[in-house]
Each structure stands twice: as structure tokens, then as C-alpha cells.
């Protein structure tokens, strides 16, 4: 029983920590692109990577101010979105999907390559770029604090506080945007692109704006992650994470302002709970070593995500909060 409560507390902390914030921001970005506009961006993790590395490279390699690094990361995300969108947004949805996933994988391979090592640190990545951020914390970052029965270091608490403020701001922005004329146009693009075009709107431009906005929100997520882990390593940005964010979005409810936030918290809670529970069961000998070892548990997370994604899409595409009529997705 004590084990169960432990697992529960660990999972609760995961649902509130910087990882949940990271996936919430990724999913909010995807929500703008996929939920509202109908764009299949499968390379959201690439935006997070340029965001995180924007700070890391600016601070450690170029010796710039942390906040200049944030600006550079955001700028890099805008450039990436433009580069991806220019060739593909005029084509059918699956082309954007293929190009974005290919770009995300290609960028990761490029960042971890030997030739990029002088800039990105290669497979080892970069570290120690966030001191300026922690210097702003109103409490001692080395102290330990207890919140809701879980223990946090001051640094974790500071990242989480700033992160959730960012999530709230991003959600507020999305809420305001989708109620505006802009929001109505992008939702109409999702429903019937040709009808919108017939009304004289520049569909291409609206799609591009949605792609850039979603990408920038994803980049902010990547920054929270980089600051939270204290390092930027190319292999942290595996593209399976994009689909974890998709799972979070669809579970919470696509095309709902709070869908991605609720989804990210629930997904992180479930994954962390399963992770801890499995590890406990293995160490207690309930699950025999031959069936599953402790090192396999890390992979279980993505097995669950894949399974969840399939089951959700088939049986409940609207997720927890969604409206079924809004998520009857079709190819275009």
C-alpha cells in the first residue's frame, strides 16, 4: 500500500513538473496546427529542439545573454516553420506529415553529428546555460519544499511556476485567437478549404500563420524542457515525443483550449504511474525477470502511447473534452 501511495505521489509530481509543461506546450502548438487548422505537423519536436538549442548555443557557445538566447530560439522556430511550410502547405495533408517528420529526424541527426559537435556538442549536447534564469527565482533554488505531499527542489519549483504561467498565457492566447475572425477562418480551412478559398481568403497565408504560431509555442516548450533538465542533448528530442504530444492532445480533446493541458497532465500521470508501479512490481518479484526487466520499463511508456493513440483514434477521437463533430478529420 505504501508503494502504491509512493507511486501515486511520484506520478502526481510528474503531472505537475516541467515534463508535463513541455508536453502541454508541444500539444498546445499542435492544437493550433492540427486541432484548429487541420495541419499534420509530425515534426513538432524539431521546433522544441531549435528552441532548446537556441538558448543553449547562444549562452554557452556565443556567450550571449540568456534572454537573447530565448529570442534566437523563437526566431529559429519561425524560420523553421517558414522553411517547412513554403514547399508543403499547398499540397495535400500527408505531404506536410512526411516532410515534417523527415525534417525532425534529419535535424536531430545533424545536431548529433560529428561535424556539428563544435556548435551543438554532438551526442553529449550542451549544459550549464540556465544560471541566469535561476538567479531570478524569488526563493532559494537549492532549498527543498513540500507541495501536495511531494518534495520539490527550489529550482524545480521555479521552472514549474514559470512553465505553468507560460502554459496559461499560451492557452489564453489560443482562446482569444480562436474566438476572433482569424480563428473562424482557420477552423473553416479545417472543414472545407475550397469553400474558404471561394470566399476570397488566402488559405496558404492562414495555414502558414498557424504553422508558425504552433511552432513558436512548441519552441517555448523546448526551452522549458532544456532549462528544466539543465542540458540540451539532441537525443532527448526523439520524434516519438511528438506523438506523445499528439496522444496528449487527442486524449484531452483536440480543438479545445484546455484539451492539450488536461491531456498532457493525464498522460504524464498515467505514464509515470505505470513506470513506477512496474518498477516496483519487478523489484518485488511479482513480475518475473524473464518477462520484463527494469531496463525495459522505459520502453513501456512508448508502447502505451502507441496503443493509447490507436485506441483513442478508433474509439474516442474527441478525447475527454472534445466535440465529436469538430474532430471528424478527413484527408485533404
Amino acid at each position: 500500500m505504501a508503494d502504491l501511495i509512493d507511486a501515486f505521489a511520484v506520478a502526481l509530481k510528474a503531472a505537475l513538473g516541467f515534463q508535463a509543461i513541455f508536453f502541454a506546450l508541444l500539444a498546445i502548438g499542435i492544437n493550433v496546427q492540427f486541432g484548429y487548422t487541420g495541419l499534420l505537423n509530425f515534426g513538432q519536436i524539431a521546433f522544441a529542439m531549435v528552441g532548446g538549442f537556441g538558448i543553449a548555443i547562444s549562452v554557452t557557445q556565443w556567450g550571449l545573454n540568456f534572454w537573447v538566447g530565448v529570442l534566437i530560439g523563437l526566431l529559429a522556430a519561425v524560420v523553421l516553420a517558414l522553411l517547412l511550410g513554403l514547399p508543403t502547405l499547398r499540397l495535400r495533408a500527408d505531404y506536410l506529415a512526411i516532410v515534417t517528420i523527415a525534417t525532425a529526424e534529419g535535424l536531430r541527426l545533424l545536431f548529433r553529428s560529428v561535424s556539428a559537435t563544435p556548435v551543438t556538442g554532438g551526442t553529449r549536447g550542451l549544459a550549464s546555460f540556465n544560471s541566469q534564469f535561476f538567479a531570478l527565482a524569488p526563493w532559494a533554488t537549492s532549498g527543498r519544499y513540500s507541495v501536495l505531499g511531494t518534495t520539490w527542489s527550489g529550482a524545480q519549483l521555479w521552472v514549474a511556476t514559470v512553465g505553468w504561467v507560460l502554459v496559461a498565457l499560451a492557452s489564453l492566447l489560443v482562446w482569444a485567437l480562436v474566438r476572433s475572425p482569424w480563428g473562424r477562418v482557420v477552423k473553416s480551412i479545417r472543414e472545407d478549404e475550397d469553400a474558404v478559398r471561394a470566399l476570397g481568403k488566402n488559405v496558404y497565408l492562414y495555414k502558414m500563420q498557424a504553422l508558425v504560431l504552433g511552432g513558436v509555442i512548441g519552441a517555448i516548450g523546448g526551452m522549458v524542457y532544456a532549462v528544466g533538465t539543465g542540458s540540451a542533448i539532441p537525443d532527448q528530442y526523439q520524434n516519438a515525443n511528438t506523438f506523445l504530444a499528439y496522444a496528449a492532445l487527442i486524449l484531452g480533446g483536440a480543438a479545445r483550449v484546455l484539451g492539450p493541458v488536461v491531456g498532457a497532465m493525464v498522460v504524464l500521470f498515467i505514464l509515470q504511474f505505470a513506470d513506477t508501479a512496474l518498477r516496483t512490481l519487478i523489484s518485488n518479484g511479482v513480475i518475473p525477470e524473464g518477462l520484463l526487466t527494469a531496463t525495459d520499463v522505459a520502453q513501456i511508456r512508448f508502447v502505451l502511447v502507441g496503443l493509447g493513440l490507436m485506441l483513442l483514434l478508433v474509439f474516442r477521437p474527441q478525447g475527454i473534452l472534445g466535440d465529436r463533430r469538430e474532430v471528424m478529420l478527413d484527408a485533404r
Partner: protein
Amino acid sequence: MIRLLLVACFGLGLATLGPGVAHAEGEAVVGTLKTSKSGPIDGVKVTVETPDGKEIGTAETDADGKWSVDVPGPGQYVVTINSDDLPDGISLSGSDSRTVTVEPGRRQPVSIGLEDGSRGSGGGNVRAVQLLVDGLRFGLLIAMCAVGLSLIFGTTGLTNFAHGELVTIGAVAAWYINVQGGVPLIPAALLAMVVGAAAGALNELGLWRPLRRRGTGLIAALVVSIGLSLLLRYLIQIVYGGFSNPYAQYQSQRAVDYGLFTLTNRALVSIIISVVVLVLVALMLQRTKMGKAMRAVADNRDLAASSGIDVNRVILVVWMMGGALAALGGVLLGLSDQVQWDMGFRLLLLMFAGVTLGGLGTAYGALVGSLVVGVFVQTSTLVIPDDVKYVGGLLLLIVILVIRPQGILGSRARIG
């Protein structure tokens, strides 16, 4: 003047270095001097210095052409060979020295280029021919895996992101049958093709046919295929493990010299198998009733159904064929690059590049496009480093979409 650059080099089998070579723990620089015409070159003096000119040590190459110098610690060293010691007819192809960085605890191999004036038309061209042949092998392999992907897209409209896992399943199944089961690789590969066909059939019967019956949209189906891909990929990692393993046979083959290029026998056989299989597939599509039905369904499904073709049966055969071809491709990839849990996913992106380049949905387009992608990826290493060669292939994909989104053989109508 016909010349050939022959690279003298490589401390490959470090543990098997000849007598007189120190095996002590610690950093060292090592290498071998030889060309294919002269064989190993002995008695050449090698000097190792620090970058600021302080001598660390010297060595002479032994009867196997090998040399080794221990260095005091990690860091940069300049290795110079005495070109006056080289026998007649052999000259340096570039500089007589190289600067290398030695990592902690590592015996750093150093290669210094030599020419023996034997054949070829200059080093660069021969390397280009070598890469072209490698690229053809790789492109044929991608094509074999991608034919199924393209036909599945053509007949059902599904962009199957889980196709890479069919490749991995084939390779891993063959590995279990071959290494754990002790069955020779050729029957193991045939069995793996059966497993691949079964996996394809299971895909269609267990998942995609029921989903089509439910009327699931294509985008939803695409996301489902992503979920399936994640599920299978990480399940394979749990079962098979995160390491890369070779097959039990055909591993230690020497490259055979064909004049302008060298090729191991397994690579040659891989090319032959791919060509034969692809020709058979083309004949099947062109001549047999089932092949014609496949092309008819891919072209216009409703028209095919109304002219009496059993569409579901055709789609099932497409899945089984695609699964078997992907499995065979996986075995051949495992033969050249070893078996890994995510090998299929890494190949998937190149398959997409090939299929898009050729034209989504066309079987011959997948073949042409994959060949171009394979050759492009390999020959791009002439100018870009080896570890970013896949990035070049993915860049090619994006460039194609800008210039000709319907691909080489595709029709405008498909791109929406």
C-alpha cells in the same frame, strides 16, 4: 595517366596487431601502410610529434606494414611518415603528415593516403564509382521495401507509417531463426518472408479492413498507423533489445576487386536478389491477372469494384506481398548494416523520400525514386560527412516537393 588512390591504413583489428606492437592500456596512435599492388610496406619511418613540434616517438613499419607509437595522453598529435623510405612506384597521394586527436584510453588509427600508380582514373572518380555501386545496392533495397508502401497507398489511400516495422520484423525474425534457431540464413530469410507476409495479412485483416468498414478517415488512419508504429517499434526493442547484432553467416567476407570498385560477395548477392525480385514484381504487375487487378484498384477503386474485381482480396494480397518484400529488404539491410530495433523506422523516411520522388501510389515510381534516393544518399558522402548522409536524402525529399510535388511518374491529380 591512370592512377589509383589506395588508402594505406587503419588500425582495424587492433587486438590482432603483429608482434612487437605494444598492447599496454593507454593512448597510442597506430596504422598500417599498404597498397593493393605492393602489399604491406615495411621499413618506413613514422614520427609522432605534438602540434608544437616536440617529438613523442618514432616507429618503423613491420613486415605486415603495421606501426604503433604510444603517446603520453589524450590530445592532438602530428603523425609524419618519411616518404624517402617508400619503395619505387609508390608515392604519397597527399600530405606526408596528418594531425589526429586521440581520445582518452583510445588507440587512434591513422591513415595516410598512398598511390601505387596501378589503375583507375584518379582517386575521386574511383571513389565515385564505388559509391555509385553502393548506392545502387542501397537504392534497390529501399525500392524493395517501398514497393509495398506505395501499392498500399495506391490501393487504400493509407500513408502507412508502420511500414518500417514490417522491415524490422523481417530482419529480427530472420535473426532469431538464424542465430537462435541455428537455421542457415537463406532458409531463415525465406521463413522471415513468410513471417512478413503473415504480419502484412494480420495488419490488413486485424486492423485496416475493420477500420475501413467503420469508415475511419484517412487522417485518423494515418495517426493510427503512427500509434501502431510506436507500439511495434518499442515492443521489438523490449523483446529483441537495444543492441545491433549480425547474422551468423556471411559476416567476415573480403571485398572482391572488380577494377573500378570493390564489392563483398554478400553485397553482390544482395544486388542480384533485389534485381531479380523487382523484375518478378514488375512482371507480376504487368502480366498476371492479380497484378492487373492491383493496378486497376490503385487507379480507380470504384471502377475496379464495379468491373467485378474483389477489391478486399486484392488489398489483402498487396499487404502480404508488401510485408514479404519488406521482410526480405530487412534481411538484406541486416546483412549489410546489422540488425537493430529501429532499422525499419530509419529506412522508412528514405522510403517516403523514394516513394514521393517517384510519385505516391505508383509501383514503378517507387522503384525509380528509391534508386535515385539510394544513389544520392551514398554519393553525397563525397562532399558531406558519412554520419549526416541521411540528412541529404531528407533534404532531397523537400527539394523534390518544391520542384515537382507529383514526383517523376506521378500524376498531377493526386497531390490535391
